[in-house]
């Protein structure tokens, strides 16, 4: 049963109702991680490394333990020593030993802010005293921050048991290069030979943080009988349960995780940092322990995404047919392996129908915090380079940048570098919509430029559980296991209401704890509306079938003779009998008599999520004397498959675009010579503020994904892929110069302007 067909047949999907959790969130009642309380909770805090790289010689916690009111002090010695075990978890490859060592250092600290001990005390002040009283002796080691310096011979080695994977024969000397990986189709050398024009460039990016406004927070209790409760803000309460069980050696069933409301994640809350420590502190202290990070801790100790070096080479014939594309990418992984190098390689040219592509990548560790997923992990970095190069190719060919992309556009049947053949995709439709948009042909002012760039993301499906329960008064509870990070409660209810044929207001959304609903993977990968939505839709469909059976029973006719229309059972045609329609509420009232409670819980492992494509148009104005950049107009076009709640789809696109604008212009980790972060706060880690921006126009293109009952494609990640190149291309338009390093901050812009010998007024 699918609902893709005619949009006008849909009553609820495509409308813009108020989200079910809205009132709590505008009145301050919503409970986020730091707001949660467990009776008798005390305060937990973490002692962090002041060094970028050091050997832990000794940790003396006796003075801290001696302070009255300090209830527990833990170090890695209090946690299980987890063996190296590779596994693929939702947000990427994961080694549980690394995850454990990232939560608490054992023999070495690998970055400033790396946890070395944790305390639990009666008050905040006592916890601070306890941290100050812990005596850690370090042997400071040489550190390395830059990705290419980390790859160079003689670089300080972070892990003496790390040997580069993907090289044969297997290396025998340890390296900071965790992995070498390559994807190839066709013959790039032949392709470049056939090219009339070749662009060859080198781009670099700085690490950027997800910068969710809510710092990580949790409260955890370990009971004497071994049962554990955790209330935490995260992108997946089942993720927290799995990781805590793994890192602490507890039965999964013994941990119940309650999902607090989450104050933003963007991929950064798909890992544990505090939760295992809070549980360990609770076990030792016998009290529930509350832990809340400071903003500074969030920057120094939680995952940014990779900084990188991307070298790109593209060849084309005079008429604009791209004959070959090649790239070498070096991605920082932070202190432990696991940068998003694979998707970086796979996405760079996925928008194009190319015969010859060769992409080579390196996953490189250095003395920075372990990277975490960040919105379309890996793709924005490689696409920034590729889409800038494509723009310069268009310039060199004298072609319109949209026409060049259209000429080489990926379409159904196009083969990607990673071997997959695209199915039904909307890239051409997105390009057409962008070209047709008035923004593309609007006039520009002085010192202004216009940039265009596109982006791709796979989107994923995965494991989700959804349930629909009909109450005796005909109202409905719509249950799912996906933490609501941006309005998913609304889309779940809308899909259920659409299937049941009842009003949105008759349904309530519920997201229960990990013991009360089936496993559901993290809210990430643009998967919730697709995969969890599929589970909820199927549950609602199962309920409809049951309702028809109940009606048949009431009417004493065969179920086949009953149809479900507009929220009520009706006889299927005249010979079924002349019964008055039975509304859902009437059937619900008779549930006990007709077989008991009416409800269905469905778990799926959704496959075949439809890939998404976006195209952004950016107008920028530059003050050539100061290098200050102002975004004057911005339009983001995206194929969303089918928008369930268009407002929240637009919101994803607008928010993603603005994160990309911040990445392009000002956001970066600034390190000093000691390898310490100099800008660990919102004052100097500069995310965009309201006055930096114009309205962001989101244009929704709908090419339904045939594998989803409503045609949904994921929308959350695509919009952060194009902005950096769109901004860079706009700057090239405004100043007639190409910026090769992110962020394109005022000092870099002014320096580039001077280097390009632009006239400097009045000088």
């Amino acid at each position, binding site marked *: 049963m699918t609902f893709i067909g005619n949009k006008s047949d849909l009553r609820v999907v495509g409308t813009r109702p108020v989200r079910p959790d809205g009132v709590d969130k505008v009145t301050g009642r919503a409970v986020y991680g730091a707001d949660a309380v467990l009776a008798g909770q005390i305060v937990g805090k973490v002692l962090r490394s002041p060094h970028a790289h050091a050997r832990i010689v000794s940790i003396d916690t006796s003075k801290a333990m001696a302070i009255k009111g300090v209830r527990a002090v833990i170090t890695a010695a209090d946690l299980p020593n987890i063996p190296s075990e590779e596994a693929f978890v939702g947000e990427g490859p994961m080694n549980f030993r690394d995850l454990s060592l990232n939560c608490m250092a054992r023999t070495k600290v690998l970055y400033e802010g790396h946890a070395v001990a944790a305390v639990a005390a009666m008050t905040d002040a006592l916890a601070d005293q306890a941290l100050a009283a812990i005596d850690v002796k370090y042997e400071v080691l040489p550190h390395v921050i830059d990705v290419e310096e980390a790859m160079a011979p003689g670089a300080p080695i972070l892990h003496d048991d790390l040997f580069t994977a993907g090289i044969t024969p297997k290396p025998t000397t340890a390296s900071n290069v965790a992995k070498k990986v390559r994807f190839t189709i066709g013959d790039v050398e032949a392709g470049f030979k056939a090219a009339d024009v070749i662009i060859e460039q080198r781009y670099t990016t700085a690490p950027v943080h997800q910068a969710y406004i809510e710092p990580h927070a949790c409260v955890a209790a370990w009971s004497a009988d071994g049962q554990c409760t955790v209330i935490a803000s995260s992108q997946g309460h089942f993720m927290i349960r799995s990781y805590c069980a793994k890192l602490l050696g507890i039965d999964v069933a013994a941990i119940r995780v309650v999902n607090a409301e989450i104050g933003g994640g963007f991929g950064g809350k798909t890992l544990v940092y505090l939760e295992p420590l809070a549980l360990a502190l609770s076990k030792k202290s016998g009290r529930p322990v509350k832990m809340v990070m400071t903003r500074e801790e969030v920057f120094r100790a939680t995952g940014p995404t990779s900084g990188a070096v991307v070298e790109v080479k593209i060849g084309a014939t005079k008429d604009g047919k791209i004959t070959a594309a090649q790239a070498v990418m070096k991605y920082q992984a932070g202190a432990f392996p696991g940068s998003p190098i694979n998707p970086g390689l796979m996405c760079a040219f996925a928008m194009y129908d190319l015969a010859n592509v060769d992409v080579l990548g390196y996953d490189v560790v250095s003395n920075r915090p372990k990277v975490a997923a960040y919105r379309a992990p890996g793709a924005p970095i490689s696409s920034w380079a590729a889409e800038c190069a494509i723009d310069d190719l268009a310039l060199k060919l004298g072609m319109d940048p949209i026409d060049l992309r259209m000429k080489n556009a990926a379409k159904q049947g196009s083969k990607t570098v990673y071997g997959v053949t695209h199915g039904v995709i909307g890239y051409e439709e997105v390009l057409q919509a962008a070209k047709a948009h008035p923004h593309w042909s609007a006039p520009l002012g002085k010192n202004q430029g216009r940039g265009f760039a596109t982006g791709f993301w796979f989107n994923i499906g995965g494991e989700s559980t959804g349930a629909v329960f009909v109450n005796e008064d005909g109202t409905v509870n719509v249950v799912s296991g996906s933490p609501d990070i941006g309005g998913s409660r609304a889309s779940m209810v809308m899909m259920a209401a659409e299937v049941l044929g009842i009003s949105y207001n008759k349904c309530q959304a519920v997201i229960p704890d990990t013991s009360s609903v089936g496993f559901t993977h993290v809210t990430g990968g643009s998967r919730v509306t697709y995969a969890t939505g599929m589970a909820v839709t199927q549950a609602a469909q199962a309920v409809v079938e049951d309702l028809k059976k109940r009606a048949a029973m009431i009417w004493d006719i065969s179920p086949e003779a009953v149809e479900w229309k507009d929220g009520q059972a009706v006889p299927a045609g005249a010979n079924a009998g002349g019964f008055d329609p039975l509304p859902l509420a009437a059937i619900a009232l008779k549930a006990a008599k007709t077989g008991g409670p009416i409800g269905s819980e469905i778990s799926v492992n959704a496959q075949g999520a439809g890939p998404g494509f976006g195209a952004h148009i950016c107008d920028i104005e530059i003050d050539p004397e100061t290098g200050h950049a102002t975004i004057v107009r911005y339009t983001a076009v995206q194929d969303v498959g089918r928008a369930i709640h268009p407002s929240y789809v637009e919101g994803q696109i607008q928010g993603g675009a603005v994160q990309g604008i911040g990445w392009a212009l000002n956001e970066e980790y600034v390190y000093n010579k000691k390898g310490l972060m*100099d800008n660990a706060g919102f004052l100097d880690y*500069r995310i965009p*503020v309201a006055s930096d921006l114009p309205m962001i126009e989101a244009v929704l293109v709908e090419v339904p994904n045939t594998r989803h009952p409503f045609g949904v494609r994921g929308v959350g990640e695509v919009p952060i892929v194009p902005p950096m190149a769109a901004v860079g291309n706009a700057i090239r338009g405004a100043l007639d110069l190409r910026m090769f390093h992110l962020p394109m901050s*005022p000092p870099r812009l002014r320096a580039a302007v001077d280097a390009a010998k632009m006239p400097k007024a009045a000088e």
Partner: protein
Amino acid sequence: MPSLNYVAPTTVSDAVKILAAASGPTRVMSGGTDLLVQLRSGRLKPELIVDTKKIPGIIGISGSAAEGFTIGAATSGALLSEHAGLVAAYPGVVEATNLIGSTQIQGRASLAGNLCNASPAADSVPAVIVVGGTVTIAGPAGPRTAPVESIVTGPGRTSLAKGEFIVSFHLPALKAKTADAYLRFIPRTEMDIAVVGCGVSVTLDDSGVITAAKISLGAVAPTQVMVDASCIIGTKLDDAALAKLDAAARAVCNPIDDKRGTIEFRTKVAGVLARRTAAIAVARAQARA
């Protein structure tokens, strides 16, 4: 660790007594927007905070363009921007003060706090210096007045003696054909610390020729620095004068490389801002009787 004590005296003399008697590290609080951040970060571990806001008169603005203005030390930026007379007479001072942080910060941050925090990047300081602002200081030895530029002696350091604190600021009576302006450069449009700040005050004769000028730069040296304004005096700020001013501004820069800007960038932008700020001040002065 030593615990913190908080007092909010209601007279100047009580405040002086408390400050003079204090044994451990002590902090005078007005708006508190810098102080609380330093407390929280642990960069500052005072044993005593003396909150001056309960002292009558320490918040408020009196006077006029004709007789000059007296501004209570703890008066917030928001109050300055709401005082029509002050805005009309000293737009540069008000602009500078209103650049200190967000709307929320504006509701608290004060001139005295911005000055005594002694940051090289303090926005209000160059603006007040160029209009000849002075401060009245209370202390064990009785009140004294001092020019604003004499207060900051280095990053985080002031010339205030033990027991002393600033009670009020004074902006002189406004001279004819005189006007001020302040510009700063930040990477975003709001919420940043000045990468470079520039205050300018100029006086013109009836023909529009500059007869007097003061130019001060922030964030380009350990303290605010004065630019040699002689290059624009006697001119109508023509292109040649602007070019000389640009060079003069760059000449006094002694900045550092940090997360907010490079030496090269700060120096170049100092020249740019000096030109732009001077042009605004001259235009304002021309518009005045």
